[in-house]
């Protein structure tokens, strides 16, 4: 039998109770949020909204006291999927809550946690990730930005690219070279917490092809980082990052990015009448989505139980991205004409956005080729 293990899992009653609460909250908070904005999904940056989530206790809820209430990962799953399905603007706190907080819980010092986690849980402290460099891309082993030991800390020089929302973040978790790569090419890197307001840090937004400024290029010019800001162990950066990446691959953000477009497509089909040719396309997308969700819940339940379903998580990501990227293609063929950017319908605007944005869906957490390589390795092929 194949090594992949997926079992349908029920969400616990607490999680379902929380779902109703989140839905009520969203109905009150973003009822009038237009579809074209919802289509931006987790790219929407709204500190006020993030603070409201924090006030509700929905950020860092799975963390142990005093930072959180050690809620089940499945409760958090429900909060996340409700936010994403509604297209709520979650970008401000997204990386901090999903990636940086857990990293500090796992590898950080007590001092770092006390200093950072409360702000994340309140929806007030935002993070970006500094991994890719101009010449590295998916190949993290080739990074060249470095931290050199100096009295009381480290001196950082180099450049990071594709850092999402660096220009609106307070901190970066940066992967920096602190020594030689060694034989397996993966040694000699270390993670650091970098204060983006420190002297020597320059953040330059890189406008994307949709016209939005999400990416940034961050340059470090003799930036001093105190010893206390080293995360985990020196030289263990690559291993820490890899663990971090693997478990974030199966979340609902991997297949709900285009959900607002799907909603508008169904609305459009409502107008086409009961026997329209759109039905089959919509039925197929519904089938794919419902199965992806079940797979994603299954992985979340195993993570919650302390297992490490890294291979399954990669499979969900690969299938999820393929699914998301198909939606604009299908919506366009059903619509039949070209969307207008300014005066078009909600469907046109959502389609125009997602058609462009979808090419970036496969950039997050590893390209399709790399993800399939990871799966192939899991199957024992490499």
């Amino acid at each position: 039998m194949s090594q992949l293990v997926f079992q349908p899992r029920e969400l616990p009653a607490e999680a379902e109770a929380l779902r109703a609460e989140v839905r009520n909250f969203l109905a009150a908070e973003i009822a009038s949020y237009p579809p074209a904005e919802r289509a931006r999904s987790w790219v929407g940056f709204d500190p006020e909204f993030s603070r409201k989530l924090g006030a509700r206790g929905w950020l860092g809820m799975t963390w142990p006291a005093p930072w959180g209430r050690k809620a089940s990962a499945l409760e958090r799953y429900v909060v996340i999927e409700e936010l994403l399905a509604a297209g709520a603007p979650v970008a401000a706190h997204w990386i901090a809550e999903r990636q940086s907080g857990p990293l500090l819980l796992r590898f950080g010092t007590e001092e770092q946690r006390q200093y950072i986690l409360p702000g994340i849980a309140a929806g007030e402290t935002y993070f970006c990730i500094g991994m890719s460099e101009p010449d590295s891309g998916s190949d993290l082993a080739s990074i060249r930005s470095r931290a050199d030991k100096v009295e009381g800390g480290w001196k950082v020089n180099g450049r990071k690219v594709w850092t999402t929302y660096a220009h609106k973040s307070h901190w970066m978790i940066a992967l920096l070279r602190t020594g030689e790569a060694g034989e397996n090419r993966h040694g000699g890197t270390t993670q650091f917490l970098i204060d983006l307001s420190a002297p020597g840090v320059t953040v330059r937004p890189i406008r994307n092809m949709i016209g939005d400024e999400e990416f940034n290029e961050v340059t470090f010019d003799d930036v001093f980082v105190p010893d206390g800001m080293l995360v985990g162990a020196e030289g263990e950066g690559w291993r820490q990052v890899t663990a971090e990446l693997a478990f974030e691959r199966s979340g609902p953000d991997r297949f709900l990015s285009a959900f607002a477009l799907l909603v508008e497509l169904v609305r459009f089909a409502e107008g086409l009448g009961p026997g329209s040719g759109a039905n089959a396309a919509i039925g197929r997308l519904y089938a794919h989505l419902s199965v992806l969700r079940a797979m994603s819940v299954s992985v979340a339940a195993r993570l919650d139980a302390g297992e490490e379903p890294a291979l399954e998580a990669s499979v969900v990501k690969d299938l999820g991205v393929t699914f998301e990227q198909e939606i604009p293609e299908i919506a366009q063929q059903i619509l039949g004409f070209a969307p207008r950017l300014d005066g078009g319908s909600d469907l046109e605007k959502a389609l125009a956005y997602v058609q462009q944005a979808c090419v970036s869906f496969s950039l997050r957490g590893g390209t399709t080729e790399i993800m399939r390589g990871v799966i192939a390795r899991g199957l024992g092929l490499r």
Partner: protein
Amino acid sequence: MSAEMTDTRAMIAETAERLFADHAEAALAATEAGEWSAALWKEITANGLDRVLMPEDSGGFGGGWQDAFVILSAAGRHAVPVPLADTIAATWLLQRAGLDAPEGLLSLADGDAVGVSRGKVMGTLLRVAWGRSAKCIVAQAVDDDPAMIAAFSPVGSKGAEDRNIGRERRDKLLIDGLDAQCGTGGSVMAVGALARSCQMAGAIAQVLDLCVTYAGERVQFGRPIARFQAIQQQLARLAGEAAAADMAAQVACQALDEGTDGFMEIAAAKIRTGEAAGKAAAIAHQVYGAIGFTEEHRLHHLTRRLWSWRAEFGTESVWAAELGRLVVVRGADNLWPGMTRKA
């Protein structure tokens, strides 16, 4: 409530797997030669696998569809060439309709309904698994109640034996006034689709295993083909399809076990497993090359069945149009609430 493997289910799975592993190869050879695999069928019935859904007081396991899943996916893995899936599905419909489920080979009419008048059935059934040899056939009845089924013995019908692409018998039956019992059992197409989805999930998992093994052994251009990135990428896709098919079928079984009609889950399962079946067969034959196209190799026992099963009890296109219609009728604003609705 949970889908964790129960002890009983683990035992059923082990029994099915052992039984099929012991008998399937000989049974396949017999089937290819046009013979009925009596020995395999005898083992299956002796172990009660065909009665998994029947209550214990009717000689069954008292199991649910999640138990049936482990049997049917194992049957799919081994390309078991007897109508176990149709028999299990028929017991379910008969039970729900409050009708007797006789022991022995039962079957379902794929795609055709019968007319019923004064306890007599009439109609032409084009695709009934081993229909000419069945003890009892279950067909949808033309009735105001869309869940009305008719059950009858084929004795006295005319028709002819026929086969699907997988060389499994799919008989044509011409029925003109046979005695039947009727009752509200459910949708024959839906239950048939669920059975095929479970079989496909198993067959696709087996296709993946065969391909992974073969790719590690077959040497071309001086190294195992598993080392070529193009092959790796294809097999990674195949693994994803296998996983999705497996989950889709399981979710539908779970929905029925929770007491719902599971119609949307079954539709999703048939669509998703069917699509996975097509992709899996294509990738597997691409990976295997000429050897996979020979009768000697067992790959085609799986792929030919996958092509048939995805088309039986409604292709993906048929189910997608129906599922899409339901989704659109429910409306855009109920898309997400509907998908996350608790049973």
